[in-house]
C-alpha cells in the first residue's frame, strides 16, 4: 500500500485518502466549449511517469493535497497543501 506523506498529518496509508485525480483546472464558465470542457471532465494524461494529482485526506485532516507521484514506481517525491486552500475557508468566523 502506498504511503502518502500528508503535509498536515505525516506518512499515512493511502487507504485513508480518496484519489481525486490528475490536477486539471476548470475552464472558466464564460467561454466553455465542449472540447476543453469534456477534457476537463474525462481527459486524463495518465503518463507512465511523473504526474501531479490530488488526494483527499478524508480519514485524517480532511484536506485536499497535491502529490507528485510516479505512476510506474508509485514513488511520491513531493506533497503540498492544495494551493490556497485551507486556512481562509476553514477558519471559524
Amino acid at each position, binding site marked *: *500500500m*502506498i*504511503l502518502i506523506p500528508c503535509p498536515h498529518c505525516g506518512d499515512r496509508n493511502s487507504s485513508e485518502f*480518496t484519489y*481525486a485525480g490528475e490536477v486539471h483546472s*476548470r475552464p472558466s*464558465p464564460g467561454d*466553455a466549449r*465542449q472540447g476543453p*470542457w469534456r477534457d*476537463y*471532465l474525462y481527459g486524463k494524461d495518465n503518463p507512465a511517469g511523473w504526474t501531479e494529482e*490530488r488526494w*483527499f485526506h*478524508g480519514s485524517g485532516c*480532511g*484536506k*485536499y493535497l497535491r502529490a507528485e507521484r510516479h505512476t510506474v514506481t*508509485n514513488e511520491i517525491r513531493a506533497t503540498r497543501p*492544495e*494551493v*490556497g*486552500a*485551507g486556512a*481562509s*475557508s*476553514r*477558519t*471559524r*468566523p
Partner: protein
Amino acid sequence: MSTAKRLLSGRPTKMRITSRPGEVIDRSKPVRFTWNGREKSAFEGDTIISALAASGERVFSRSFKYHRPRGILTATFHDPGCSVQVGDEPNVRGSHRLVTAGMKVTAQNVWPSLKLDVASANRAAGRFIGAGFYYKTFIKPERLWPTYEKVLQRFAPGGRVSADSPHGSYDKRYAHPDVVVAGGGPAGMAAALGAAEAGARVMLVEEEHSLGGHLRYGSETELAALAELRREVEASGAIEVLVNSAVTGRYDGNWIAILQRNLPHVTERLVKARAKVVVAAPGLIERPYVFEGNDLPGVMLSTAARRLLNLWAVAPGTRAVVLSANEEGDATAADLSDAGVHVAQVVDARRGEQVVRARGAGSLSEVELGDGSKVSCDLLVTAVGWTAPTLLLNVAGDRPVYDERAARFVPGDGLPANVLATGGIVGDGPTAALVEHGRATGRAAAERALARDGTSVTIPSLSPAPHPALYRSRTHGIVDFSEDISSKDLVSAAREGYDSVELLKRYTTATMGPAQGKLETINTVAVLAEATGRSIAETGTTVWRPPHVPVSLGALAGRVLEPVRYSPMQPWHEAHRATPIVAGQWIRPEHYGDPAREVRTVREHVGLIDVTPLGKLDLRGPDVPKLLNFLYVNKWLKLDIGSVRYGLMCGEDGVVLDDGVTGHLGEDHYLMSTTSSGADAVAHWIENWLQTTFPDWQVYMTPMTTAYASINVAGPKSRELMSRVVSDVDLSPEAFAYMQVRRGTICSVPGCVMWRIGFTGELSYELHVPAGYGLYVWESLLAAGEDLSAGVFGLEAQRIMRLEKGHLIVSQDTDGLTQGYGVGLDGLIKLDKEDFAGKQELEWQLERQGYNHLVALLPDDASVVPPEASQIVTGDRSIVGRVTSSRLSPSLGRSICLALVAPQLAETGKSVTVHLPDGTDVRAKVSEELAQFDPGGERLRA
C-alpha cells in the same frame, strides 16, 4: 495387541522409532484422533501426516488428474499429496497442521477411493488428459456444458465446504518494525540478532512451528548451534518472533503482509507490517527428481526423510535406496542407517549413477538403476538439488538469474535499498558461514532502517556451492505434483508451439496448483529447455507472485470494522418490533407490521417517522449563499432568514447528484439536508469546491448528521400535536408557513430546528433535536398525541406516500446517466445564473434534447404492480424505458409507478407496454401529473 491397549500403554506405533535428539514430539502426551473414522494415536508435536506415517499409513490422497495414490513428498506445509479435510475445514496442509485431541481427519480428493487399485481408472483417464486438456476437451458443443461441469467437479481437488461451519475468529494487526526478517533458519535468526544488536526493533517470521530451519533436523553439532541461536533470540529484548506465520508478500512502501496462525482463539491474523527494511531469508526448497514412478508413495525428498526421522521419530520406510548428489543426501543415508532403516543402496549422482524408474502397485517396491540393476525397497530418497524461493526479491523488482555452476536460480542485482537477502537463497556454507552472513546482513538492515551511515558493515561473501545439474532421468515422470503434469505433457506442449515458459505454464497449468511453483518451477523450465534445445538460462523462469502461502478470505476480511449506525430511537423501534432494513451504514425501521395502515394513520391522523439518517450539514459564513447558488441548479442568493428551499444538485457532467432542502437559520447560518445515502458524498463535494476552486470563500461546513435526531411529524393533525409540545414558536399557518424554518423548544428541549416541508404530501414538520434527546422527544410526542390517534410509520410507508406524491428519490428514480432535465424539475434549472456545477452540460443537454423523462405510469390493470426495473418496450421489443418505482397505493386503491421513458413516450395519456420479469406484458398509461394524490398540494400547505 489391540489399538486401544497400545494407546493406553503409550507404546510406539508401527513406524515410530526410538528417541531422536532433536525430536519435537512429547512422548509423555499421547493424543488420539481419527483418520477416515478409524482411531489413531499420536504424540503432542506430531503433524497429522507424521502421526499417520508413524501408524504405517503411506497413502494420503489421490492425484489431481490421474488419481494416482500419493504419499509424502516433502513433509512440509507445501507437501502436494498431503492436503486433508479436518472436520469441516477442507484443504488442510496435513504435513504442517499439528494433531490435536479428537481431531477428525478424512482424506479428500479420493475418487474413486483411497485404497482401490486404480490401474484401470488411471488408464481410462490417461487416454484423454493430455497437455491443454481443459482447453481442448470441454469447449464444444456448448449444450454439453452442464455435463462438463459435473465431470470437472469430480476432477477438481479440494475437500467439502460446509455451509454450517461456525464463523472463525479472524484478526488484523498493524505493525511498524524497523526490520522484518522473513525466515527463521540460522541465517534469519542471525540477521534478527544482528539487526537487534545494532538497535533495530525486529520482527522475525518463521513458517514452521519453531525457529531453526534445517538445523532442526540436522546433526548434533547443528542442534547445538540452534540451541545457542535460540537462546540468543530469546534473550534479546528487541526481537518479536512469529512462528507458524508466513510472509505472504511485499507491497508498495515495504508493506509486508504476514499471515499469523499461532494465536490462541484466532484462526488467522493478517499482520500488516510497514517495515523500514525487510531481510529475505527463506532458505532453500529441495527439488524433486523427474523419472518414471517418481510420484509413488515411498519416493520422497531427502529433507522429507530427515524431517520424519529427526523431528517426529518416524521411519520413512524399512528398506531404502538413496539417490544423492549432495551432502544432504549423504546425511540422510547416514541418518537412516543410524535409525535402523536398512539402506540397500546409495546411488551417487556425482559419480554419474542414476535412478531410471520406480515401480510398485500402489506404493514403491522396486527401483531400477542406470545400469539396469533392480533394487527392491519401500523407500527411495532423492537429493538432487535446490530451488531458491525468490518471491520477496521478485516482488521488489529483482529478477533471478541462472547460476549454471550451482544448477539453480540465484538473486539478480535489482534489489531496492530496503530489501536484503541472506542464507541459502544467497549461497551455501556451513552453519557458521550462514550465521556470519546473516548477522552482517541484519546489521546492515538496521543501519539502513535507522538511517545511519552503514558503511562500517561489511557483508561477507556467500556463494552457491557447485552442484550437478540434475532435473530429469532418461524416463518421464511427474513435474507438477499438484496439477498432475508430467514431463511428457510439457514436451508435447512445447511441440505444439507453447515454447515460452510463461505460455507453457498457462497452457498446461504447470506451477499453477496449490504448490504454486515451489517444487516444480525449475523442473518445468529444465524440461522445456531440454525440449527446445535451449539452455536453462536462455529459457528463463517464471516470476513468483504473492501470496507465498494460501491466505483465507477470513484473514483478508479480518474483524468487521465497518460502523453500523442506529438512531437514538433504536431502542423504541426494537421494543415495538420494527422490521429493520439496511440503508447504507444505517439500520432503519422498514415498517412496524403493516405499512398500509401506517399510510392511513398519516393521511387521516398524524404519524412520526425517524429520519435521523437524513444528511445534515451546518454551513456558516458570509459566502454560504454563493456556495448554495453554485451547488444547486436553482437560485439561492435571496433566501430570507426563516425560509427553506428545495434544491437539486448536479455533477459537472450534468448528472443528478443529490437533492434536499436547505434552511436559512440566522445571520450567516444555514442548515443543509441531503439524501441519507448522499450525506458523505455531498460533504466531500462541498470540501472539494471550497478547497480546490473557491479557497477565498468564507464558509465553514460541519457535518451534523449524527448530532441531530430527526423526526418527521406528518398528517392533518400534526399542527395540533406540535402545539402541545412547542411553547416558544407561533405555529399558526400565517406565522409558520409551508417552506419555513424555526428554531425553538420541543418537549422542553431547547436548540431544536423545525421546518415545514413534507415528503409525504401532508401538513408536516421535520424536527431536528439534539441527538441525546431523540428518544425522549420521540416518546413524548407519541404520548402527547395519544388522543389524536398518533402512530409511527417506517420507510416503506414513506416510500408509498412519496410515490403517491410523485417525488423522485435520487439514485432510485435516477441513475448514473440521468442528467438534470427530464426528472420533472426542469423549471428549477436556472441557466441564466452565471455559473453553477453542471451548468455547461445542462445547457448542452437542453440543446441536444432526446433525453429520457421521468413520468408517472398507471397500469391499465390497477391490481398489477410491475416490479421495479421492469422494462418498457416497443412493438419490436426495443427497450425504451424502465419502471423506477412502483407500489400499490393504499390511498388510491391502485398501482402507481414512476418510470424513465424515451421522450416520444412522455406524453399525457400515452399507452406503453411494460415487460414484466415473468415474461408477460402489461399496458400502462402516462399520467398527466407525477403526483397522483393531492396534485395541487393543498394538504401540504394547510
